[in-house]
């Protein structure tokens, strides 16, 4: 677990929404990136490399692709996205592993 947290002093945020991350619920602020929501929740391991070793986000600016996850809005299809570029909104599901083939 990391000591990550949202800065509260001097910051007013919209009401939280629920983000589904790998099947579990997570409170997140609309507008912040999915990566920010994950980081704030203490989640650091975003994928495993080929040796099964944990990996996390590196650049938070769309360049390293380490934060690539699967994202689904409502009933739409799963899409591959860099989590640091996807704003949180209601009805968003995130998977750090490939969805079951449909």
């Amino acid at each position, binding site marked *: 677990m990391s000591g990550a947290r949202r800065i509260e002093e001097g910051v007013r945020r919209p009401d939280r929404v629920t983000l589904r991350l790998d099947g579990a619920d997570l409170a997140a602020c609309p507008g912040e990136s999915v990566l920010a929501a994950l980081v704030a929740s203490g989640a650091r391991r975003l994928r495993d490399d080929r040796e099964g070793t944990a990996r996390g986000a590196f650049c938070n600016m769309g360049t390293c692709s380490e934060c690539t996850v699967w994202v689904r809005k409502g009933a739409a299809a799963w899409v*591959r996205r860099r989590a640091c570029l996807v704003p949180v909104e209601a009805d968003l599901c995130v998977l750090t592993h*490939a969805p079951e083939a449909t």
Partner: protein
Amino acid sequence: MTPGSSHPDILIVGGGLLGCASAWHLARRGLRVALVEQSQVNAGASGQNAGSLHFQIERRFLEQGEEAASDAARIVSLNRLAIAEWQGLEDMLGRGLDIAMHGGLMVAETEAEMALLAFKVARENALGLPTRLLDADELRARAPCLSPHLAGAAWLAEEGHANPRILAGAFAQQAAREGAVIACGARLTGLAMQADGQYRATIEGLDGLGEVTTPRVLLASGHWSARLAGLLGLNLPLYPVPLMMNVTERGEQVLPFLVQHVGQRLSMKQSEDGNFLIGGGWPSRFRRRADGLPDLDRPGEIVEANLLGNLAVAARVMPGLAARSLLRSWTGTTCISADQLPLVGEVGKAPGLFVAAGGSLFTLGPVLARLLAQTIVDGRPADELALFLPDRFAHLNAFAVLP
């Protein structure tokens, strides 16, 4: 060039698969081999291709009507040799080459395409190639990741793929161990036949100009071969074809086979690492030089419609592909001959001048290089090359003037 190699038994021009494999076979048979490559080993089509090992009759032959197809069917005998060659290659070179021969499918979407496949399979079987027609259910059982709408496929157990990133380099390494001198960054810029029948080659290298005198020259220079033959005033009917390829990100292994399409341009396979390689002969477009002519020396640029067309066929055949990400599209230039068959052997008008070029020479490259080396050492064409000798186009050189 190093001075020691300025009088080799043979000068090979081109460090692609054909050049490197020929260098190895010739060096093993005791010839003093010098190979010049204008950029780096494997920098041409040999390192840019799809890596397909396809032994069924290619779609491009079937496309030109029944007569051409029956002509092209003659290549089947060579394909059978190629299968054996690939099966023994890792042992021969003493290293892994990511060769996967788990089978290949040429799929059909319509009944008309199924009919074409049936025609093709009958022809192949008659020629001793054990392809087999699979109906829709058999196809689904064999490759559940492919689309259920497919009508069926032709199956050949020996097809597959290999890693074009390492093959030519592996041959080059072995050739060097057998004593071949391989010079990169060395370009053939001049070629003349002397009165004594020897060739004098001018090589522009990193350290200036060099001269090589040799009784034999092998043009294994891919689509450049025709222009280089022009240095001697000779015509080779080889035409450059700019193509494109695509690769997806890695994913779990779902497709152990090579997949082609009988009615559409498609080749698709999953690499050892899990990436999908998607190609099949979709053209790219040459950039223009300042004078407006096509620039054959630079990789072509991608034609958007063809990129989309290629991906669309692939995703139709394997729907799961749509969810994968395209990582990179690249272009490369291969060549075809006037009758679509490779050109391999001695050019009669210029004794001692050999050529090895043409399309699909990844699949056929290893066996053709061996047969060519045998031809050069024996001093007469290997029987298996009868169909591919450059002199079937001897009429194009009727007016050439050589010493």
